[in-house]
């Protein structure tokens, strides 16, 4: 039985959402399904992937070239899979290759070739490749020393974005509004970058941010797993953004223009596995820019997997050992192949979870450096319901869009909308509650009007619920509307001061949710999966057991 060494995720730090543990665990299982013996190295024992049943042999060792070499020497694996451990795994694999360790022990690097990873991650190589294939990238400058940084201070377009190369979650990056900020943040970024390299680029603040999760196999077959639209416009790190899948405001031409660009990029890089492409889209034209490519399984792909039911890491692992997309089974339907694009018949909302309740003195403003430590994802048949479910899932002080602190002045509120913090969702709602128009909120926040209109709808339901305190006769109608918009019974009761269970007899309104299946194919094919979501609908996909199961 051939052995494969998998590099694990290492420590889970701020800027990650445990996605590499999720991906690594899926990958180990997937490789064992293919008949390989899996050896796992990870420095972090507090992960799922280091559970006994995940791999055949597990080493809890520091993720350094020295320790890894010793594991390789002892285990003599046939292949090394590094594209599932995030940046840590990639950096380690590239060090092992540079040191000649892989060659010495005849270890084959599986998945995306290192060369492709370099092309995607080295800003200059990437930009020249994009120019070659005629994909637009924003005007930018590479800085590799303080002297170069200084020379740029007078010519850079402000505001501009600073992105250090080879760092996790955009550490050390930020927006510079003037030369002082560029100097400060730029110097910090140079220190933090593994190769002391950073990129300064034209700011696309206010443009829409859209992502595509794409896959490619060794034969060059390409698919899109899903696309996602950030509620927060460019300027907020996608890990700190509220993200919706699929995109909501792109027409078919725009959707496929960006999809085609993403596939062209993954094809030209020669990725073998999963890849994430981030694009900035002008809200007023067909213009777009390619912002960044993550040539590996990432936080976004973990989200995309859960949002679509398509197991990206599992499929990426099989691609890494040479299988093609049309040979891999769709594990959800079990009747179709992994070579297809999931069709969603629901809406997915992701909201990041920030640790500011624990780090009370932290700067809560969101920028290009990710500050979230986790995220929640909710699925429903409407945007409103998915949003409200996600808000409840956050387990923060507010269980809905009302905020305990409404004392902000209008000026302070406007500032918060302009420079978003982790509480931006509540600030958007508060502005609408104060009667600001959708247009004004959009101009200040740059959030697409589509999302603001939806939030306005929720704020209006909220106000009708509160209105029941003085005029309870409309309770039936308003309760039904509130439940359909994703308000839960306790919020309905709290806002209205009434008990909805009493006002709504179960004959007229169904109080319990329906359960629908996440089946990757919008119901087109019969599927065999235990993945369901609760939503306000008519019919259940899940068969309700006749005898309720008791849990002791």
């Amino acid at each position, binding site marked *: 039985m051939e052995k494969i060494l998998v590099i694990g995720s290492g420590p889970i730090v701020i800027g990650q959402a445990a996605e590499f543990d999720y991906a690594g665990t899926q990958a180990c299982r997937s490789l064992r399904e293919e008949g390989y013996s899996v050896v796992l190295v990870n420095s972090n024992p507090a992960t799922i992937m280091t559970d006994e049943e995940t791999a055949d042999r597990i080493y809890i060792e520091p993720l350094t070239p020295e320790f890894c070499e010793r594991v390789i020497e002892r285990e003599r694996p046939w292949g090394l899979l590094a594209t599932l451990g995030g940046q840590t795994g990639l950096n380690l694999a590239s060090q092992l290759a540079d040191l000649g360790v892989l060659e010495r022990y005849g270890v084959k690097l599986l998945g995306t070739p290192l060369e492709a990873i370099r092309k995607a991650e080295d800003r200059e190589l990437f930009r020249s490749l994009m120019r070659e294939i005629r994909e637009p990238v924003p005007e930018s400058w590479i800085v590799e020393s303080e002297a170069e940084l200084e020379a740029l201070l007078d010519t850079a377009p402000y505001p501009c974005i600073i992105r250090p190369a080879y760092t996790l979650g955009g550490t050390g990056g930020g927006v510079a509004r003037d030369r002082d900020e560029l100097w400060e943040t730029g110097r910090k970024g140079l220190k933090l970058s593994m190769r002391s390299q950073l990129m300064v680029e034209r700011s696309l603040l206010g443009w829409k941010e859209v992502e595509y999760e794409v896959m490619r196999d060794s*034969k*060059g*077959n*390409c*698919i*899109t797993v899903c696309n996602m639209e950030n509620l927060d416009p460019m300027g907020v790190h996608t890990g700190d953004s509220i993200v919706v899948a*699929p*995109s*909501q*405001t*792109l*027409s*078919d*031409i725009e*959707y*496929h223009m960006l*999809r*085609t660009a993403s*596939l062209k990029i993954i094809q030209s890089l020669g990725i073998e596995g999963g890849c994430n492409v981030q694009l900035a889209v002008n*809200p*007023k*034209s067909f213009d777009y820019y390619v912002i960044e490519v993550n040539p590996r399984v990432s936080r976004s792909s973990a989200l995309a997997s859960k949002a679509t039911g398509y197991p990206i890491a599992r499929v990426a692992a099989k691609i890494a050992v040479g299988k*093609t*997309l*049309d040979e891999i089974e769709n594990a959800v339907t079990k*009747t*179709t*192949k992994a*070579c*297809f*694009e*999931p*069709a*969603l*018949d*629901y*809406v997915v909302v992701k909201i990041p979870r920030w640790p500011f309740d624990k780090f009370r003195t932290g700067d809560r403003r969101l920028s290009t450096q990710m500050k979230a430590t986790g995220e929640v994802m909710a699925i429903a*048949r*409407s*945007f409103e319901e998915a949003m409200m479910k996600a808000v409840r899932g956050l387990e923060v002080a507010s269980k809905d869009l009302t905020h305990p602190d409404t004392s902000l002045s209008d000026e302070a509120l406007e500032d918060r909308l302009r420079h978003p913090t982790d509480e931006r969702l509540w600030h958007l709602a508060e502005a609408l509650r104060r009667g600001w128009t959708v247009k004004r909120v959009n101009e200040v926040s740059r959030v*697409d*009007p*589509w999302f603001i*209109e*939806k939030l306005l709808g929720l704020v209006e339901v909220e106000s009708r619920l509160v209105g029941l305190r003085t005029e309870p006769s409309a309770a039936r109608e308003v309760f039904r509307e509130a439940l359909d918009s994703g308000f839960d019974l306790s919020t309905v009761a709290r806002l209205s001061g009434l008990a909805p269970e009493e006002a709504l007899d179960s004959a007229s309104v169904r109080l319990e949710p329906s359960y*629908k299946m996440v089946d990757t*194919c*919008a*119901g*087109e*094919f*019969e599927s065999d999966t235990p993945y369901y979501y609760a939503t306000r*609908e*008519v*019919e259940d*996909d899940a068969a309700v057991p006749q005898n309720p199961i008791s849990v002791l």
Partner: protein
Amino acid sequence: MEAWLALSDGTVYPGRSLGAQGTSVGESVFTTGMTGYQEVLTDPSFAGQLVAFTYPLIGNYGVNDDDFESDRVQPSGIIVKEACDTPSNWRSRRTLAEFLRDRGVVAIQGVDTRALVKRIRSGGVLMGAVSTVGPDQALRASREAARYDDTDFVGQVTTRRPYAWGRQGREEIDAPASPMPVRMAVVDCGLKHNILRRFAALGVRSIVLPSTVTADEVKDWRPDGVLFSPGPGDPARLGGVVATARELLGWRPVFGICLGNQILCQAVGGRTFKLKFGHRGGNHPVKDLLDGSVTITSQNHGYAVDPESLTGKDAEVTQVNVNDGTVEGIRLKGAEAMGVQYHPEAAPGPWDSRKYFAAFVEQMTAAR
């Protein structure tokens, strides 16, 4: 305002009216594309059908002035979970509901479309009706409706008189032709404009002809190649077009898209059959048997070519569907002719198979 969707098997789904008032009947089908409702609404291949969208939020980016695939709304009605009244997109000119009302299209929202899809998936497509009058009227209409397969939809959607399509879009047939290197005859069985736009971008002036055109009339236009377009209805009804195709095979390069592919197959003696619920959406994987590659395609068909019927005939199956193995592409022997069952023109759907248009242009150029 209330509305009802009734299926001929007796199922009634209550909902709310979304477009015009009245009752409308059609074959109930579903499409899984998450974008592209404007293109679907104007795609002639949906004539005579009630189209349910599996994606629950339809109308998010409004209706614009550009993305029309024909001059009118083609499905008899649409079924959605939720229509957006506050669309957001820089090209949006009106809401979906406004558009449907303007065009007099009966539509329904608030339907558990996933429940509907599961019914169609297990029982196959069936006749249905959307009505704002009442549930009984809807049910009766769905049962009294003429069978989809018995209706001549191609005759309803084809162009009445010839026209041309050049660099600037649609033009009179006898307009001084823009200087374009290639001339293609299109037999219009229910054409989507994006076919013409894509070919125009490749330097091809299209001469669009009614489906009743004869082979001699096609030849009189002196085209460099002939395209048989997609279209609605049962391909087995199209004896006349099939005869035209048979005469043109071998004369100039020929290309068939969707219904056009089925016409080519029948021209060499093949047969078609009706699929249980068709392929409609933009995520169908197709394998090219010649090079082993797989492409994600845009599809909209309710019938497929029976591969058995091509045995011993002058046709070779070159592409198959990865999901269900149905025929997705053919090549004819002894004639420069190929057909694809899916839509390289996209609109809506992925752009991955545009290469076939370029290949056909090359063939036409070489044949001059």
